């Protein structure tokens, strides 16, 4: 189905954080592999969900793609250009097409900027330092007009333009964040946990708004969340991460219908379903123990310690993400339980 060129290609992306010891004489004692050699594609117009538990590297991946986080290895090819090789000048114009919606609508807005300025800021940056064409076309009235149109699109009344972030509710603040991300008409929007700080009834509003805007502006979403139910409702394809690696990629229907990786299965069975009779009927795989520390990870499968089906091989060799027999080509899994095609 996806014969088109991918809009975003992530290749062997690795983000390591140095772990240091000592106050005066700092010494690096190891690396924390937050993201360890992951690759995936995002096609134009689709929503790709990135799920995993805290510490699995999903937010680090998102920030690395937006170049808000330094990368150790790999390539991030966006519209045919490797973002990691761009100069800061080139990056600024590339970022026009790649915007981020942040998790916490309370801390991602400047408390000293009113709603209008928050949304106008990316436009002003491009007007000052963007391409020549943008500098000329983005005059003050053009920016104002754009901001009001965006506010209308995300469901904020024009009268709210002069209000400051603290005067808005969480849901309204997230609407400002969305308007700001859309100000430069991006192609790809990275949404990092956009609804997890919101109440249930507001969550649905924001998710619906994001869907509507996708249809209207032809957006591609990379949607990051820990709530599997939200992700599966929102995304076309889902990437499941565990301890810095991708364990499974599948369409959201297939991931729920035929989850392959033992971790995905455990994750799915842990998600509560708001339906009492069905909850009682379900058989649960409750994982033992916690997610191990990503410090000094061993060479084998990162899930081997908690895996109910782990074999000797899993302890020493890391399985590669690949398609397996009997499953569609889009469904990939990194597990030795299945035979590679």
């Amino acid at each position, binding site marked *: 189905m996806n014969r088109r060129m991918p809009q975003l290609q992530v290749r062997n992306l690795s983000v390591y954080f140095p772990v240091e010891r000592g106050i005066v004489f700092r010494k690096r004692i190891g690396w924390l592999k937050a993201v360890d050699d992951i690759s995936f594609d995002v096609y134009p117009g689709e929503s790709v969900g990135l799920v995993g*538990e*805290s510490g699995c590297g999903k937010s680090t991946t998102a920030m690395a793609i937006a170049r808000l986080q330094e990368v150790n290895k790999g390539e991030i090819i966006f519209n045919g250009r490797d973002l990691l090789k761009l100069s800061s000048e080139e990056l600024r114009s590339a970022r026009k097409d790649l915007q981020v919606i942040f998790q916490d609508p309370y801390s991602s807005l400047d408390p000293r900027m009113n709603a209008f300025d928050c949304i106008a800021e990316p436009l002003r940056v491009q007007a000052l330092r963007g391409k020549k064409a943008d500098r000329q076309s983005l005059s003050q009235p053009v920016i104002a007009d754009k901001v009001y149109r965006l506010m209308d699109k995300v469901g904020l009344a024009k009268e709210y333009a002069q209000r400051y972030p603290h005067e808005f*509710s969480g*849901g*309204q603040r997230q609407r400002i964040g969305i308007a700001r991300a859309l100000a430069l008409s991006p192609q790809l929007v990275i949404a990092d946990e956009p609804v997890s700080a919101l*109440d*249930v*009834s*507001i*969550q*649905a*509003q924001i*998710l*619906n708004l994001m*869907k509507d805007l996708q249809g209207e502006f032809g957006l591609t979403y990379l949607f990051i969340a*820990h*709530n*599997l*139910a*939200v992700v*599966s*409702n*929102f995304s076309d394809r889902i990437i499941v991460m565990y301890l810095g690696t991708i364990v499974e990629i599948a369409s*959201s*229907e297939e991931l*729920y219908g035929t989850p392959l990786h033992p971790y995905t299965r*455990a*994750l*799915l*069975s*842990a*998600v*509560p*379903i*708001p*339906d*009492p*009779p*069905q*909850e*009682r009927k379900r058989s*649960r795989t*409750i*994982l033992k123990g*916690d*997610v191990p520390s990503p410090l000094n990870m061993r060479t084998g499968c990162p899930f081997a310690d908690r895996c109910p089906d782990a074999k000797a091989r899993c302890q020493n060799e890391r399985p590669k993400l690949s398609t397996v027999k009997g499953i569609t080509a889009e469904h990939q899994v990194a597990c030795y339980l299945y035979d590679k095609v």
Partner: protein
Amino acid sequence: MQDQTLSNKAAYKPGECAPVILNVENLKTQFKTNQGLVKAVDGISFSVHEGEVFGIVGESGSGKSITNLSILRLVPVPPGRYADGHIYFKGKDLLAVQEDEIRMVRGGSISMIFQDPLTSLNPLLRISIQIEEALLQHHKINRKQARETAIGLLRAVGIPDAERRMDDYPHQFSGGMRQRVMIAMAIGCNPEILIADEPTTALDVTIQAQILELIKSLSDTRRMTVILVTHDLGVVAGTCNTVAVMYAGRIVEQAPVDELFAYPLHPYTKGLLASVPRIDEAKKRLYSIPGAPPNLIGLPKGCAFAPRCDKAMPQCTRAYPPEKCSSVHVDGLGASGNPGESNTAVFDDRHVVRCWLYSDEKDLNKIGSNL
């Protein structure tokens, strides 16, 4: 006094339910602020039966946490104030007893676990000291015995290598393990009621499943009544027996869990259920309740949900709807989908709702004469 509390429950058929262990009557907890009076809890009543898991659901600001803090009288006074109501625990009104008496209840016969296990544990003390503290307070035992008991508790909540981990500090535990430590502290004195205030909100979903499983098994093996506060309807569905839905400081609907999910009556409950994405359902556009939860300062007269409600009627903004048992209105429920099976077999007096949609002319006449 106990007889009096039980007589309120005349609606329950004898033998059908376990006895009532906690009875909250018309509780009103308010806060004085510079902006005005916040009616955080505004006249709620409910009863919790022995051995059940009672769920309280609501969005932030709905008053669910303040309800729980009020039960243990932990609301800071001032600015807080218990304006009205009674909380009967085994016949004693917890709001009326002396301070030293309520102190024996706290952590003794009613104990509580909180949302964020990191901020609820003292970072400077080893967990052994923190677990032993409650044991020494409530029982006549020495340090050594307390330590023995504490190790047993840590084992009971599934902490491996309990003896060694006893002397670790809170930061040495992961989030799920910290919540287990909190639960160990809470069940130390064999409480009759365990209040769990969003116990899994800060945890990952696989860890959440572990903790909920633990709470359920503890409530079974120790015959412990649990009051579980959450905003996650999925958690409620899998854990609770009875559910109360709160909105703007009031209980808008209360029912046995199966019934609430199968036949929600209040428009807010219906909207809430429809707006939750479900993993077992195909992708669809979610229903969303318009607007946002109201500000609790200067709430307008009538039903607080009326401005967001698509079924709002003139009387909704005039007066707060009276409490109704659904059994009275079973016939009107054809709209919920299964009119055939919706009759007396499914519904009983335990399903109560506060909404003008389900009241009759008599109620309407009452507010008519008030105006």
